[in-house]
């Protein structure tokens, strides 16, 4: 059976690399001398994440180029699904983690008094949970991967132990998260009770045999979707997000505002498309309702916010609403242009949202608070940061020539094509509203004078992170074709089993 090792390890190489990297960093933090520890751990982490990213690309290339489908042993193939869709998202998750790591060192040096060497391993374990989650096609694997991601996120949000806001945020996030896990588990147990299976393909067969949709199957699905909704911070399951975003360390907020959303959307797509395609009409209406509530509530509540992290929290609730439009308007056959909108939007969202939080990190490193009032005159004191934030906010609002435009165009187009015209109308209206509060920040930065001048001395790493995010946002905005094409390889998420 030694030949099987290759076929087992190959497809899950990114996960194995991340797991080994996390453990290695944990051990390194214990034994390295104190004065060189930070540098060594940081660079090892960066190189390790780069290796994981490369391995994702290699597995993707191997799958895309090989004529026959990927062979995995039965016990692995039923729980993890390594296909183009999952791999594209794994690449995005690794990219988001690398950007988070780049913007972290200065912030943790300023803010953390203890536990600096555990910070990086925890981020790596969060990335591991998310990469597992985008592949998981068994309810138990989904639950375990989701808990790995969530538990690490709770710890990281409450990481600034001496800061009451951070500990409060961590506690609230934990309590709401634990409750939502229980709700999701209850939904999973109902599904298992009705179908007698935990892997999604068998669940689909069992539901098809039941014929007319059993009410208990619907209840199970609704409870599971509610659980996923908590992790996605989609309204009406969003209450934890503003607190967690405001109190948590800003680089971590950048990660948890992007990574778990990618993973959550992947899980949602896998569960709905592999497990429950027989009751498409039911879940399509459910997701459309969640999308509409998220968009309206997120964008309207963002308007009066005084704290930029709270504002970005509500804006991200609105953003997840746009992405859920894409999920609601998925077509019967996945071999359709409408699927690629979701992936393009997630890619764009990763760049613009992490970029925005990177600028917030830079501003708070200079000793300013997170209040929008403190961004007065940023254009004079640091033109780079002000222009960067302008680009990210314009992209979040969906204005040309930034990447946000294409994400929205594809998603709204798909909605109209699938008969969800009302959702597209709500989405466009919300985008118009969002321009108001995004550009309020721009107004403060460019047209108001700073009360006290501040000097910004950012490390090269943070600047590099911001420049990568700007490049991504603008490049995809100007030249979107290759990315839409890349998203298209991920279309076929429901292959014949």
């Amino acid at each position, binding site marked *: *059976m*030694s030949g*099987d*090792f290759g076929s087992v390890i190959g497809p899950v190489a990114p996960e194995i690399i991340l*797991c080994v990297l996390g*453990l290695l960093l944990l*051990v390194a933090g*214990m*034994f390295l001398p104190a004065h060189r520890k930070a540098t060594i751990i940081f660079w090892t982490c960066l190189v390790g994440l780069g290796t994981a990213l490369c391995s994702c690309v290699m597995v993707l290339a191997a799958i895309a180029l090989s004529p026959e489908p990927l062979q995995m042993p039965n016990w692995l193939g039923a729980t993890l699904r390594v296909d183009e869709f999952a791999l594209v998202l794994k690449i995005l998750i690794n990219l988001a983690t690398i950007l988070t790591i780049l913007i972290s060192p200065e912030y943790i040096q300023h803010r953390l008094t203890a536990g600096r060497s555990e910070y990086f391993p925890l981020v790596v374990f969060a990335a591991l949970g998310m990469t597992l989650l985008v592949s998981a096609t068994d309810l138990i694997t989904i639950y375990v991967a989701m808990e790995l991601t969530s538990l690490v996120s709770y710890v990281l949000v409450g990481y600034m132990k001496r800061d009451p806001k951070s500990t409060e945020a961590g506690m609230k996030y934990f309590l709401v998260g634990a409750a939502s896990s229980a709700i999701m588990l209850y939904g999973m147990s109902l599904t298992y009770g009705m179908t007698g299976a935990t892997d999604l393909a068998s669940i689909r067969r069992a539901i098809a045999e039941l014929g007319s949709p*059993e009410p208990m199957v619907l209840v199970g699905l609704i409870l599971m979707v509610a659980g996923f909704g908590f992790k996605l911070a989609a309204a009406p399951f969003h209450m934890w997000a503003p607190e967690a975003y405001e109190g948590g360390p800003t680089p971590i907020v950048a990660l948890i505002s992007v990574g778990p959303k990618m993973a959550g959307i992947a899980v949602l797509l896998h569960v709905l498309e592999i497990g429950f395609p027989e009751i498409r009409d039911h879940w399509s209406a459910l997701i459309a309702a969640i999308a509409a509530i998220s968009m309206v509530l997120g964008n309207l509540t963002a308007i009066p916010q005084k704290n930029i992290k709270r504002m970005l929290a509500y804006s991200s609730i609105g953003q997840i609403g746009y992405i859920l439009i894409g999920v609601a308007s998925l077509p019967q056959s996945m071999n359709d242009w409408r699927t690629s909108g979701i992936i393009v939007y997630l890619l764009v969202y990763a760049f613009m949202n992490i970029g925005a939080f990177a600028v917030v990190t830079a501003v708070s490193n200079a000793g300013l608070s997170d209040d929008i009032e403190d961004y007065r005159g940023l254009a004079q004191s640091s033109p780079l940061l002000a222009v960067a934030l302008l680009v990210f906010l314009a992209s979040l609002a969906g204005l040309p020539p930034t990447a946000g435009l294409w994400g929205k165009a594809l998603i709204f187009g798909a909605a109209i094509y699938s008969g969800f015209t009302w959702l597209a109308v709500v989405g466009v209206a919300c985008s118009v509203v969002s321009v108001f509060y995004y550009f309020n920040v721009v107004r403060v930065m460019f047209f108001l004078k700073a009360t006290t001048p501040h000097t910004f001395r950012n490390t090269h790493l943070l600047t590099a992170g911001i420049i990568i995010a700007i490049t991504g946002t603008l490049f995809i905005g100007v030249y979107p074709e290759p990315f839409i094409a890349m998203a298209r390889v991920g279309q076929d998420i429901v292959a014949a089993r």
Partner: protein
Amino acid sequence: MPSDYAYVALFAAIGVAFIIATLVFSWFIRPSDPSPEKLSTYECAEEPVGPAHVQFRVGYYVFALIFVIFDVETVFIYPWAVLLRSFARNGMGMFAFVEMVVFLGILLVGLGYAWRKGVLRWE
């Protein structure tokens, strides 16, 4: 199908009714003769000392966590040890062995971490 759920409802109703009935019945027939000793909190026959709402040492929780880790480890190792021979017969022996070594290795790193951080010291 609905009749299956009717059984569940019936059991739930009987369960609730049983508790209420026993409580009410014993309330009627028991003698009521309270004394300070009877009303004090039962603490393994010791004299109760202070209220129960006190802060516990956080060290207890860490010890409990490490205990749970090894508890779960046993739960995993036991069926594995029972099945290893049949795995070996099917040519999967090496594979199953490596799997368990990986699992134990990850736990060992966790124990080493806790040890190094001084969690196992109690003063």
